[in-house]
């Protein structure tokens, strides 16, 4: 069995796949990769199924030793990495020879990068998924972020690969997938709790991603938004990407480790095609919101999925 030894974990590195949907009635959050598109493409590059588990690194990457030969790919934000002394190119498969060390640095672009390995990261599944949910300490590798000295198992397929396959991602696709700072949204279920004027200033305003943002939610700083109704509402189910307005008037975008229900009014909801962009937002990044029609969201999602399903996406 092939392994990965964690010499340095980086700032916050967790095992993630595409999450565990379907357990809302138990209060279980889906979790999963913050940038699922980057994880999916990384898996394609090493010949895995889209939903295989990989490592999600945040802002600063780790150092990993491979005691055996392996095939890897780095996707998402460029953290700069070397395999022994050779630079590793993002969005390409790379061959790791026995005993080599992968060293990653701090981000040079977005917030998160993914290390995918042929065979996937092999952890005990919780409710059918390998994803870590940090708040509840469930899933992933012992329900927590990786630490120095951890040893991860690589799935069976990784042990049996014979010939390394050079694969890369079409440049056109990458341009299309570049993370957005203008997030497209649909109107939220409580958008009528906010006056027209308030909504106008919400869509005209620029918001800054706060330091306290994490996988549960992105806290935003900027002009406060006041609801005409005021206060809390009765708790209801909340969707991924919901833009909640807290009692203090500042927005929080619910993210992958979101709680399943909540009691703040929601002015807007980030569209599905832009959820991956949320995963690449760093503290202090400036963002804006753009209202789009429901029909548009479907077209954009279809376009994204078409591109991901396209034979021309992966070269080689």
């Amino acid at each position: 069995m092939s392994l990965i030894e964690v010499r340095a974990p980086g700032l916050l590195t967790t095992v993630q796949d595409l999450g565990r949907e379907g357990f809302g009635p138990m209060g279980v959050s889906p979790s999963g990769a913050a940038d699922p598109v980057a994880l999916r493409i990384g898996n394609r590059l090493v010949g895995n199924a889209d939903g295989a588990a990989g490592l999600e690194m945040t802002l600063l990457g780790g150092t990993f030793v491979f005691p055996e030969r392996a095939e890897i790919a780095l996707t998402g934000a460029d953290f700069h990495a070397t395999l022994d002394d050779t630079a590793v190119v993002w969005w390409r498969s790379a061959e790791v020879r026995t005993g080599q060390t992968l060293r990653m640095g701090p981000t040079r672009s977005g917030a998160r990068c993914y290390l995918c390995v042929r065979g996937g990261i092999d952890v005990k599944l919780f409710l059918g998924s390998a994803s870590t949910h940090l708040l509840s300490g469930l899933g992933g590798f012992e329900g927590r972020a990786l630490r120095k000295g951890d040893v991860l198992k690589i799935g069976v397929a990784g042990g049996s690969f014979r010939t390394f396959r050079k694969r890369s991602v079409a440049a056109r696709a990458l341009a299309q997938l570049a993370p957005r700072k203008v997030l497209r949204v649909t109107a939220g279920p409580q958008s009528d709790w906010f006056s027209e004027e308030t909504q106008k200033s919400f869509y005209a305003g620029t918001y800054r991603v706060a330091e306290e943002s994490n996988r549960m939610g992105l806290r935003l700083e900027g002009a406060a938004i006041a609801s005409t109704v005021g206060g809390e509402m009765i708790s209801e189910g909340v969707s991924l990407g919901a833009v909640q307005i807290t009692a203090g008037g500042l927005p929080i975008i619910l993210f992958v480790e979101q709680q399943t229900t909540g009691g703040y009014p929601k002015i807007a909801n980030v569209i599905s095609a832009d959820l991956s962009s949320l995963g690449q937002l760093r503290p202090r990044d400036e963002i804006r919101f753009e209202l789009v029609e429901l029909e548009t969201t479907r077209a954009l999602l279809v376009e994204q999925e078409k591109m991901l399903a396209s034979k021309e996406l992966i070269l080689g």
Partner: protein
Amino acid sequence: MVTSGKASLRFQVASDQALMVCFDAPAKKNGAKAPPLQNQITKEAHEQVRRLLRSVEMEPIAGVRNLHPAYCSLLIKFDALKLRHEELEEIVRGYIDRMEKVRLPEPRLIEIPVCYGGEYGPDLKDVAELHGMTADAASELHASTPYIVYFLGFAPGFAYLGEVAEELATPRLPSPRKSVPAGSVGLAGRQTGVYPIATPGGWRLVGRTPLKMFQPDRAEMSLLALGDRVRFVPISREQFAKAELENA
């Protein structure tokens, strides 16, 4: 898209891949006052949510990914490549038309032992004082009320229980605690519940149970399920310590 249906049935677009089904009072218009929160938490609405959830669980809808029940609503997350909001609404209306016939399981009665006050319930004294009663009277009142599990949310296994006696209703803490120990029994308004895991939390803590509310290696991971009935049973510190040892 807000479409009105039967008297208290409402469908709402929550996101491009989520539809909200509400069994509550109609939406508030700009500038209008919100109806008092507590008026919306009704056993009737809860019964509807429970029936619809059961129906969809028993007869899953292709393309539906997740269900988030709450007091008087059910959020349905779906795959927009397979379903459209209008199509899903139509399907759900069919379920609602038929759901009166759905047989709901008999509610289970689950007793939760609680050690009230002291370090386990640091807010019990304040809650009691606020309502002009002794701590003992407050804990007795909390334990003498039978509760319904309206839904689970917030965190794995966290059950929203209602309703706390009016004389005990207390708003949340002005600022939440950074960490509430697992097993803590809290109050917020007329809701009560047990924190299954250590999390930040703003509910007033009146006691603690030695029971594990959520355990991934247990056949029934969550001790409580939507629709269950709950009664809190006061225990002494000695009983708490003993039970905690047994559960370890």
